[in-house]
């Protein structure tokens, strides 16, 4: 489904990703873990073509999407991304946030788009707030709307960029359980996260990023209990000391 091959990305002289390779099969969930600044967000932005890569390729369903001849809008319409800071459109109602892409990008007529959107909002438990403005919702609710907005066009791949990092602790659970449901429904997803519990219990595979590359990738039971790379060992030890695993 998704193959990242020897990806490189730098800003100015600062190399953020170098020689990074990983792959995700259909209906699988890959968790990206690693310290802040290890390149998790940049990797997701590269996959969604919000950044132009310096070198390497990203293949989606076998097609090289980093080829400059590929139209980014077309790729983005099939890949959903959810951001740490929600990035909902503050001047639109919840419903309009969710119907924007179906109507403008996919040409769905308004009544059908609203029907789809309400079904999706119902799925994230917010159908009753369809007419509200984003700033009338709690952080957890806003993030669930952002997830509904990304899901409503049935993307083939979903990217989650530290979606719980900006939430109050008591709101993290509602978003993580939604992610677990999506995973159970067979959504192909890449989840950059600091929630080790989630990575361990929900993800099929975990990739540990360090120094802009994948230091270690494997099933969670192996990576969390028997890490091979010394950087992974150090990272996990610090997390255990902090009581977060």
């Amino acid at each position, binding site marked *: 489904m998704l193959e990242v091959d020897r990806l490189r990305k730098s800003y100015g002289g600062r190399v953020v990703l170098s020689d990074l390779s990983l792959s995700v099969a259909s209906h699988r969930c890959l968790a990206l873990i690693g310290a802040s600044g290890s390149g998790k967000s940049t990797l997701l932005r590269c996959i969604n073509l919000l950044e132009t890569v310096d070198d390497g390729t990203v293949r989606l369903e076998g097609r090289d999407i980093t080829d400059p001849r590929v139209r980014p*809008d077309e790729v983005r*319409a099939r*890949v959903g991304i959810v*951001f740490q800071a929600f*990035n909902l*459109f*503050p001047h639109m109602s919840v419903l309009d946030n969710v119907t*924007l892409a179906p109507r403008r*990008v996919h040409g769905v007529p308004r009544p059908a788009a609203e029907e789809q959107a309400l079904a999706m909002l119902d799925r994230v438990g917010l159908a009753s707030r369809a007419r509200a403005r984003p700033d009338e919702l709690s952080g957890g609710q806003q993030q669930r709307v952002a997830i509904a907005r990304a899901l409503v066009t049935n993307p083939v791949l979903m990217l989650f960029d530290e979606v719980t990092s900006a939430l109050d602790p008591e709101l993290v659970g509602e978003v993580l359980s939604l992610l677990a449901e999506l995973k159970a429904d067979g959504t192909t997803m890449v989840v950059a996260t600091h929630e080790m519990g989630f990575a361990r219990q929900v993800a099929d595979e975990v990739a540990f990023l360090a120094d802009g590359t994948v230091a270690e990738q494997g099933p969670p039971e192996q990576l969390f209990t028997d890490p091979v790379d010394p950087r992974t060992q150090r990272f996990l030890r610090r997390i255990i000391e902090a009581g977060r695993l």
Partner: protein
Amino acid sequence: MSTRGTAPGDAWVPSPVQQERLAYRRRRSRRSALIAAVSTVVVLGAVAVAVVHTRGWPQFRHAFFDLSYGVQVLPDIAKGLWLNVRIMVVCEVVILVLALLLALARSLRGPAFFPLRALSTVYTDVFRGLPALLVIFLLGFGVPSLRIGWLTSNALVWGSIGLILTYSAYVAEVFRAGIESVHPSQRAAARSLGLTHAQTMRHVVLPQAVRRVVPPLLNDLVSLQKDTALVAVLGTVYYDAVLQAQIDIAESFNYTPYVVAGLLFLVLTIPLTRLTDWVARRQGWAGATGPV
């Protein structure tokens, strides 16, 4: 004040300590109001006495505040002001459209749009830098003197075009500031959904940008309203409020008509500036800049 904070069903009665505080505050605010009233009367009285006793006051009053003459010229000047209002409305509509196009042209990316981008930049640089009066002279006297058949020689039209050219450069910068103030994450969110640059502008960036720049836009509108008087320098056959006042003054050598025209402008601009303030204040807590 004392009833606030009482929830329904809550049998709260302020404690003696609180009642004493409330009584103290009431006494204080009564005292403050009294002091303000007395000091206002004293200051205004002193100013009035000083002005009236200044040497030359009778002549001054006669030349600027001749009430009966003012009433006499009021209808003509008011008719002139109606012309100012019409110039303002027509110009403002054209300015808003032109300025928005200029701002959008500057936000275009891609090599094909380089000429548009450059043209828009040069245009705003030039017309923001030129005095409005100079542009109006140049067009209002210059173009009709060419006697080109298909171009109108109506000075009113050329004066208005001068205002439009100058103001659209300012307003374009206001729009551009608004567009740039929308956080890049909003653009990223829209693009990540597959929206094109144009769709992102139309549905996500512009609606937020315009909301934010309403106060400065109203500010420019107030300014335009005053500057419509500049068209009078072309000495058109159409008399605006200032020109009408000038004509009256030429007959009577009494300057009251200027004061009348000034007051009429204030009658228009003060409500607009109050509206501007009100909109700005309201946006402070409920604008597109709110949390999210």
